[in-house]
Structure formats: structure tokens, C-alpha cells
């Protein structure tokens, strides 16, 4: 079941620098939001706030009706938020095989073994990885590892999926294949998702809406068509960096 993600006046300071500054953002149930911004703009920190790894210094975060973090406190720890995450470096556990990587979360939730194995088999088949259950992350290709990370996040049927630039180190063909896989999986599940990227193409192809983040604040947001009609300075700079023809 998808859930609304809502951040209200969230701020966070790390050391002397204010990483997130009075940020408010709402992602509707089933909506795919691309969080677009240059390196150091606070994209990953925002995901860590939503996941519950760090508390906001000020402001509040809600998942649906639940207040999960507020004013310096984590009210619900990460494991009780039922969110899926695909990390930039994937973070597959190297000492567990593919089955073990997917089973860990299901075991933590005490899913019976038969049900667990059925769900793992279905998920692996969905991402075209059937038969790889006993292989370790080190024995997989780059694209296969990406798909295991996606499967691991989705096998738990999370309320929302957070994705942190997982395609940044892939070649163009593989990146396009995985983008299509992401899009298909999100749409068939009607899942709320936040997709962090610094690539305008990925944001345009995958999302329903794009939020542009700069120095810890949302400076512009809207659909791709709305943004390209009236690009602000940040989007113009990102497009200029790409020297790329935007999709119509």
C-alpha cells in the first residue's frame, strides 16, 4: 500500500554547514518524484532524514498520517517505517548470497519460510534473475547486482521506495534498461517513490514530477513539461552541462 511522504519546514545542520534549510515537500501516494540537484545539494541527506537515520533539527516528517520524525527526535526507527531503499553503491551484503540478501528483511519480519521463498522466487523472476539464488554479489555482473538491489528493496512490499542514484556508474544501454525496469515496477505497483539523481534525462524519463534541490532548499518543482517551459537558473545550468536535447 502506497503512502504519502510529507516534510514540513525540515532543517538539518551537519557541523557548521546547514545541509537542509526549511524544506517542505509532499509526495502524493503513487507519485514518482525525481529529486534533481548537483553534488552536495543535500539529496542523499534528505533520503537519510526520511529513512530515519538522522533526526531533523527542526520541522517534521510524516509517512501518511504517522509522524515519524520531529524537532530533533526520531519517533519511529528505520525498521518500523516500512520503506525500501536502493543505495548509490547498492550495499549488497557480500557474505550473503542473492537469496540471503532478499531473505534478510523477510526473516526480520518473521515471514514463514515457504511464503518467504515464494516471494523471493517471484521477485527474482520479475527482475529476470531466476536461478541466481545461490550466487554471491561478487559473482554477479554490474547489471545483475543493480537488479538484486532493486529486488531486495521491493520484495518487502514497502510503502514507498527511495532510490539514491543507483545508475550513476553504468553505461548508457544498461542505464536505459534499468530505467525501464524501474518505471515498469513502480507503475505496476502504484508505488510512491523518490528517485535521487543529478541527471536531467533520468529525472525526465522516470518521474511524474521533478523537484530541484540547491543548497538544501527546493528551488523549483513541477512536471517535466512545466519545468522545460520556464527553466530556472539551476535547471538551465544542468541542461547546459549536459549539452543535450530534452525529450519532448
Amino acid at each position, binding site marked *: 500500500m502506497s503512502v504519502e511522504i510529507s516534510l514540513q519546514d525540515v532543517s538539518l545542520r551537519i557541523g557548521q554547514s546547514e545541509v537542509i534549510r526549511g524544506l517542505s515537500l509532499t509526495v502524493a501516494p503513487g507519485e514518482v518524484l525525481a529529486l534533481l540537484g548537483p553534488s552536495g545539494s543535500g539529496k542523499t541527506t534528505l533520503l537519510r532524514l526520511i529513512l530515519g537515520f538522522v533526526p531533523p533539527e527542526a520541522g517534521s516528517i510524516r509517512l501518511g498520517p504517522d509522524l515519524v520524525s520531529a524537532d530533533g527526535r526520531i519517533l519511529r526507527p*528505520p*525498521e518500523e517505517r516500512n520503506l*525500501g*531503499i536502493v543505495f548509490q*553503491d547498492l*550495499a549488497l*551484503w557480500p*557474505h550473503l548470497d542473492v537469496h540471503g540478501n532478499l531473505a534478510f*528483511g523477510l526473516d526480520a519480519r518473521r515471514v514463514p519460510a515457504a511464503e518467504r521463498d515464494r516471494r523471493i522466487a517471484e521477485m527474482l523472476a520479475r527482475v529476470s534473475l531466476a536461478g541466481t539464488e545461490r550466487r554471491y554479489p561478487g559473482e554477479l555482473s554490474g547489471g545483475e547486482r543493480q537488479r538484486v538491489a532493486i529486488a*531486495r528493496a521491493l520484495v518487502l512490499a514497502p510503502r514507498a521506495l527511495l532510490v539514491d542514484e543507483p545508475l550513476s556508474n553504468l553505461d548508457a544501454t544498461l542505464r536505459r534498461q534499468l530505467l525501464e525496469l524501474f518505471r515498469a515496477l513502480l507503475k505496476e505497483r502504484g508505488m510512491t517513490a523518490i528517485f535521487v539523481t543529478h541527471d536531467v534525462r533520468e529525472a525526465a524519463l522516470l518521474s511524474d514530477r521533478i523537484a530541484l534541490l540547491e543548497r538544501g532548499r527546493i528551488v523549483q518543482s513541477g512536471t517535466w513539461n512545466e519545468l522545460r517551459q520556464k527553466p530556472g537558473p539551476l535547471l538551465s545550468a544542468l541542461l547546459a552541462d549536459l549539452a543535450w536535447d530534452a525529450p519532448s
Partner: protein
Amino acid sequence: MDRPLTVFRRHEEQLYLGAAGLVIAVAALLPLLVLCGQLVSSTAPASGPAATLASARIWLLLARSLGVAAAVTALALGVGVPLGFIFARTDAPGRWVAFALHAFPMFLPPFLLALGWFHWFGRQGLLGSETSSRALFSAGGLIAILVATFTPIVTSLAALALSAIDPALEEAARVVARPWRVATHISLGAIRPALALAALIVFALSLSELGVPTFLRVDLYPSAVFARLGGVDYAPGEAVALVLPLLGLALILLVAERRFVGARSFAVLGARAAERFTIPLGRWRVVGALAGLLAAVVGLAPLGALIGRAGLGGFSSVPAWMGGSLWNSLAEASLAASIMTALGIVVGRALARRRRAAAPLDALAMLAFVMPASVLGVGILATWNRSATAAIYGSLAIVVIGWTARYLIVSTRTIAIAVAQSPLHLEEAAAAVGSPFGRRLRRIVMPLHRRGIAAAWLLAFVFCLRDLETVVLFYPAGREPLTVRIFTLEANGPPAAVAALAALQIAVVAGVVAGAGVAQLAARTGPR
């Protein structure tokens, strides 16, 4: 004119590795080959290896030694892993101070700690009685002392490995599981190679240990070998035969190391290793703090007893009893550590860069470390104790050779870990602008990894300073290091003087470790 130079430069890396390989072969491989040669040539049925090994008592001793080593390893893991977790990953108060105090004894010769515990629980000890003395001078007492001595190795390796885990691995688990489950299923799983290495080191050191079982009068296999080389049972031919089962055992340990540890012990750290999460202990913080305190007390108690037993009288007699042993220790350990570091730079770097020639050299160095010290000792005796090599055998060079063979793996692996953290491109960039291998080593690799290299020298130095079991079989007359001096005096010397010498050894090691700590702190806080 420049042709020989060009050929030399093209193969410079191989030549460096070849030279390092030659030194390692002379130090570590030659003694084993000579030993094997003697075993093969001793075929006389009455006095050959078969006759010696036919004794049931020998196999009983070996079984007992293996049992003690296995028990010490299991208990050290059982205590050290949770302690490593408390020190590295929880918010227990005072954990870093407790960790430092708990870890310090691993830099000391184990028999000094046995001596310290004797001053607590011996018949006339501070807490001693007939019962405590009987418990101390038994297999149980031996195991307890070795566990207290070697647990810090497990704690340190577990804590280091836990600190080096990529935090993303744990965060990915935290999304779906509680901290305790993440700790037991993900964190501990990810550090399995480090735990396997710790188990291997503790097992090998326990199996080699000579000083503690001799002091506690528990008959074990290394004592049997030692007795045939310098004791009442003098029979060097039998000693050679006795190392045969140990050779097989060393090979099994080497295979285990290759299988379960190998290159994984110097895996690259995660990019965000500094951001690891801490497990809040909540109301269990007191328990965590008490566990740390207990570990620190166990580490310090024997040292305190030694200093107390020495008293003013003991310390004033130190110059008379010490002789030149402290200077021998420092000179021999410095020289051996320098040689090991030089070899470690060449071999460790090649290992980190996956050069094929480095693997057999690493395996040989590992074999020399995991094999019981008596095997290496008997091999060195058989190789160098001849008239043609008397100049070497009678000088400090023999001690340097022995230590280099035994502890080379320490410097090699430390430098390999350091080099593996930096990208190969840094060296390739230098090669691309025409810098030959030797210059790259001096101008790129060594400055970049100076801290790792300094740590390798220091570790090798401390391992040499604490060594007894390797060098006791072949130290040259009048050139004995301090550990040997204390060990030989322990039986007949005045207890206060022996305790004072032990305190001196502790002070020297504490000074070296503290100096290194201060230097490391200065390097971190000073200009880069």
C-alpha cells in the same frame, strides 16, 4: 650505452620482488628445507624419526597442545568478539580508555602476564592460597592465562574490522531490522574474514607458546622440543623428528588461512567508513561500561602485581641483573623491524596490487608465522649452526634472521592493507610520465603510505620485543634479548629482580606504544 639500464628498468619491479624473495627464502624457506633434508636422511630405525614418533607420550602431548590451543581460541573468540563490538560500535561510557588498557597486554610476552598472575594467585600471592595456587598451576590455569593474554588480539581485529565496514551495508539492513539483528547477521557476517584471521593467529600463538606452560609446569609439545635442545633431555636428533607432525599442522593452518582469510584481510574500506552507526545501549550502558572495565582490569592486574612485587629493592637491582639484554632487545628488534619493513614495502605493495609473484612470498611468510615457533627454531639451528656460518650463528644476525622469518607477515600485511586503500592510478600516473619502479616506490608509494609503513615497522618491532619462543632456541651467548633474560632468571633469580625486569619490559613497550600513539595523533591534527 643505455641498453642495460633500459632492460633493468623494464624488469625493475620483478628484480625488486626477486631480491625480496631471495631474502625471504634464506630466512624462512631454507630452514624448512634443511629440516626436511635432515628428516629424510635420518633413516636409522633405532634413532630415526619413526622411533622417536613411536612413543605414545609424544602423541598425547601433541593432542593436549592442540586441545589447549583450540580451547584458548574458542574462549578468546567468545570473549573478544562481544568486547570488540562494545568498544567499536556502542555508546558504552569510557570504552576507548578501556579498549586501550585491555589491548596493551597483547604487546607483552605472555609469560610476563603469567608471572603477574602468579603474584596474585600463587601460594604466597596477594590473593593466594593453596587452592588458588593449584588452580593456577594446572591446564585450566594455563588456558585462563592464555585467554586473558590473547583475547585482545580478537578484540582488536574485531573492533578494527567493525570500524571499517561500509556503513551503507548496515544502513540497508537497518531499514528492515532492529539494531541487534543487524549487528549479529550483517555486521558480524561482514567481518568473518577478520574473525577467521584472529582465530588463526590465536591458535598459532597458543600452539607455539613455550614460556607460560613451562612456568606453570604444564607439559606440552613445545616444551618437549625445547627440552631436547637445551634441557635435561638433550637430544637434537629427536627434536628434529618431533617437528615433523608440527610441519604437517603448519601446512593445514596455511591452507585454512588461504581458504578463509587470504586477500580478504586487506579488503578496501568503504568510502563512508567514518559514518558508521553506533548502537545506543540505553539502560544496558552500565553493563557495557562494566564489561569494558572488567576487560581493562584483567589486562592491568598482572602488570600491577609485577610492579608491586618489584618494589624499590627490585628496581635498584635492575642494572646488575639486566646486563646488556635490554640493548640487545632494542638493537635486534630495530634491525629486524627495519628489514621486515623494507621487505614489506616491496611484497606488501605487490600483494595489494595483485602481482602474481607476491602470492607465494605471502604464503611463505604466513607459513613461517603460523607454524609452531619450535619448527622454525629447530630449522634455523640445523641451517646455521655449523662452522662455515659460525660468524652469523654467534652474532645478533641469527636473532634478526629468526625474527624476520617469523614476523615478516606482520609488516607485509600491514603495508598491503595501507596500499590497498589508495587507487592504482596514483602509481600509474607516475609510470605514465616515465618514472621507473624504484622511483615510484620512493616518491609515490612510500610518502603516500608513510603512516601505514610506520605502523608496520612499529608492529614488527613490538612483536620482536615480545618474542621468546622463537629466539630462545638459538640466541647467541651473551646476546640474549630481555625476554630470554627474564625467562632464564625466573627459575633461580631473586623474585623482586625478576619482577623489576618484567616491569622494565612493560615500561619499554608502553613507551613505544604511547610514543606511536602521540605521533599518530600529531600527524592527524597537524598540517597535512
